[in-house]
């Protein structure tokens, strides 16, 4: 049996999605860097906890913009997995939709574990 691993349109959508999300993250990093250089003449030395991010972003805080850049970059593969899970479901490929869902669950679990063990 020979068949492509996934539908070509899903593959192409995934390719452009990964590129766009990464580029958006890079733009945030560059904007944050410029703002930081203008405001304090150096790069930030720490990231901002996600809970403080919205408030500090509204204040155009450079470390917050940079942190948003890092988080956006880290979201690129997550976007890829969501896109694959959705695409597989639409193709009625439940087995691989479940595999993508399981990997996403493991990633969510990594956040929970990081929050629980933080500072331990």
């Amino acid at each position: 049996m020979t068949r492509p691993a996934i539908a070509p349109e899903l593959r192409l959508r995934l390719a452009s999605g990964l590129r766009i999300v990464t580029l958006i993250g890079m733009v945030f990093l560059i904007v944050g860097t410029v703002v930081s250089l203008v405001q304090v003449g150096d790069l930030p030395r720490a990231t901002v906890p996600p809970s403080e991010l919205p408030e500090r972003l509204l204040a155009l805080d450079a470390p917050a913009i940079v942190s948003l850049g890092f988080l956006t970059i880290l979201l690129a593969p997550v976007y890829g997995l969501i896109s694959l899970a959705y695409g597989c479901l639409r193709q009625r490929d439940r087995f691989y939709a479940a595999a993508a869902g399981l990997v996403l669950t493991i990633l969510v679990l990594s956040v929970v574990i990081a929050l629980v063990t933080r500072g331990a």
Partner: protein
Amino acid sequence: MDLLTELGILLTAAGAGVLGSLVGLGGGVFVVPILSVFFGIPLKTAIAASGVSVVVNSAAGASVYLRDGMPNVRLALLMLVPTTVGSIVGGLLAVHSSPNALRIVYAVSLFGMIIVMARRGARPSPPPAEHDPLGLTASYYDRAIDGGTEVCYTPRRLGPGMSISAGAGMISGMLGIGGGAVQVPAMNAIMQVPVKAATATSTFMVGPTVVASALIYYLNDLIDPAVAIPAVLGMMLGAQSGARLARRARGVLLVRILMVILFYLATTVFLQALGINVPGAR
């Protein structure tokens, strides 16, 4: 940290990106020991910065490979299950281990990669299997074979491949590197996936693998933007130049030179772990 040091990190990361792309290891294996040994940057900070850079490189590389239809996405999804679990364990070990323990693991892993590089050689893949219940059979167009031909294959021995993948995930999470140095030879030698498909599948897998540990680094405040931003930008620029240079570079000689560099870095990191002072190192 002054702007000159940040510029130095950018240039180092660019160099590491070039070298990593030339031998298909990714820049992390070079950038982490160099930042730690010669810039005096804490090992965990260097690992976290490399981890974020690896995600950027994986996303950029995977998008190119996906357009060409090279990665076996179904195989990647199955292998990502044990790999991401391994990566979480590795990320937690990175956060909670002592720097010297990490140095020893890093040095041993680098020595292992040198052995893999020395023994590396593409193994041919058998024809696709008739029985393929998981639908893993895939094909891609290889321009290099007979002026262009369709290569069709079926990944085999999924169990052992997935077990090794879990180990690769752990090393990746612990050391902030992509893990392709373990994944690609394992997929080729054990699962009989052609090297080009294995490389593309591994590149696609690196993103989700490293994200699991990178989120742990982020939430444990290990990402220092003053190190991570120049590292990300430098590695991205370097990886793209390296990919272009790789087409013209003389493979065998280059690999030997890079093996010597890796050996030097591995030995330096190992000696530092033992508390032995190395000239030039911080």
